[in-house]
């Protein structure tokens, strides 16, 4: 599985001229530093307004925004659903969970029109908010809360703990591993978004890595180098945070 990536990596260390005359390479060349630094810091794009470095910055802002927002809102919403007596609880439950049936791809066109009505095209809020509108994490936190013994709340209630304190002092620390798992999973999910940034960013200033890949102009070895760089963040997560990430996959499916 690693071979195709290796070939692209090896090719990315040769000069474009060499690639153009000799094709893809299996062995390393000696243009590594030159190619990669050129891609990172040289302005490219149709209007020559963006560097790969800026795209990485944009992707990280977007991915962290999506992960943070979904974790925080889902953690709270699940708490509201599990630990409170609510009128119309069933309706609210379905209002939240029916959203699992409608991935962003199915509402992309109207979403775009609405975002432009709200003046959110070419903003980070526009990139983050519609992707955070998902109840996957809520479903998962709800399952987790339900597995926490009732005695915990009984004891806390005897002590006169308020609902807000119970949430912050008991539930959030208890959910630490789960929060990390969901956060990492949502980070990769956000980083890997392609279609939404593609239509939401008419200005090159907001291009993200994954969508910039196709649109970016440059010589062939520049493009190879950029493809390889674009894989680094998710691969680092897989290699170093494998346990948490896999836990995230299992929870979210």
């Amino acid at each position, binding site marked *: 599985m690693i071979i195709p990536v290796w070939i692209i990596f090896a090719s990315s260390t040769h000069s474009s001229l060499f690639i153009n005359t000799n094709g893809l390479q299996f062995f390393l060349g000696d243009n590594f530093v030159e190619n990669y630094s050129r891609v990172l810091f040289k302005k490219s794009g149709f209007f020559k307004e963006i560097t790969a470095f800026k795209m990485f910055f944009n992707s990280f802002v977007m991915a962290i925004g999506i992960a943070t927002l979904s974790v925080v809102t889902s953690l709270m919403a699940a708490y509201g659903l599990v630990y409170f007596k609510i009128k119309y609880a069933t309706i*609210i439950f379905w209002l939240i969970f029916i959203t699992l*049936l409608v991935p962003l791809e*199915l*509402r992309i066109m109207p979403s775009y029109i609405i975002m432009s009505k709200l003046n959110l095209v070419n903003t980070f809020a526009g990139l983050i908010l519609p992707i955070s509108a998902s109840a996957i994490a809520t479903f998962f936190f709800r399952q987790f809360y339900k597995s926490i013994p009732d005695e915990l709340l009984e004891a806390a209630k005897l002590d006169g703990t308020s609902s807000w304190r119970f949430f912050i002092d008991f539930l959030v620390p208890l959910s630490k591993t789960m929060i990390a798992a969901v956060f990492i999973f949502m980070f990769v999910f956000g980083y890997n978004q*392609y279609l939404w940034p593609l239509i939401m960013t008419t200005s090159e200033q907001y291009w993200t890595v994954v969508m910039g890949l196709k649109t970016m102009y440059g010589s062939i070895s520049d493009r190879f180098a950029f493809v390889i760089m674009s894989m680094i963040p998710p*691969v680092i997560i897989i290699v170093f945070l494998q346990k948490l990430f896999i836990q995230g996959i299992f929870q979210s499916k």
Partner: protein
Amino acid sequence: MKKVQFKSNYSQYFFLAPQLLILLIFLYWPIIQTFKDAFTMQDAFGFGSQFAGFDNFLFIFSDPSYFTAFKFTIIYSLVITLITGSIGLLLAVQANKVIHGKNVYKTLLIWPYAIAPAVVGVMANYFFSERYGLLYHLFNNLWGFNWYKDVFDAYIYVIIAGSWKQISANFIFFLAGLQAIQKTVIEASIIDCKSNIRRFWTITFPLLMPTTFFLIIINITYAFFDTFGIIDTTTIGAPGSETKTLVYKAYIDGFKGLDLGSAGAQSIMMMIIVLFITIFQFRYIEGKIHYN
């Protein structure tokens, strides 16, 4: 729900509000708009629109290109499910036998899972382009492969591009499934049955059935939705529009063709498909509870 709960007049809404607000604006509003679009006919010049009933649906059903996309999506999801499922299972069985260096082996097989489909597509593009493509020239020498012209060859292209990353997902879940099988069951079966292959098909594989069924759904959902980035970076539907998935076609009709009505109707058709898949999935979850 919990037996012990907080009784409060307003705090629960404070906790629910952020998510509900985001869902309302960024999910329910677009969905309602999708339904509106699906049942209205837009003026070609964007001056006005009028209620059209089921005209948009009738239009997509009478449109041969919709059926082309439908056919391709079905073939695509079945082939991807079959290929990635069997290779994933094979690798998981191997990984389960490995004793030394298990983690290295696992990591090597898992990491493509985290790579974006669009990145995979851009990479596949280099292997299948006429200019640089190693695989293009290999296949071209074998049987005159040319995805720019031949539908079957284009299928091969997008299937290879689509499968690569999804093998990892199948591997992860099959490995977890294999590890969940109790050692005693395996030991008992070794005494009863000497043949490794027969033991796999009569003991291990039936025990993996829940995982297999779950993965079929995961793979179908992947082929339906996540492959957008792959199609858009590889064939873009080429040779004609034979490799457009339903999601891709809806996007092209909506964004490039500016036909909101048709795009809306196509989205609703897909929502119905997702609904069926989800009902299936819930059935499976219920089944699992009884099984335990």
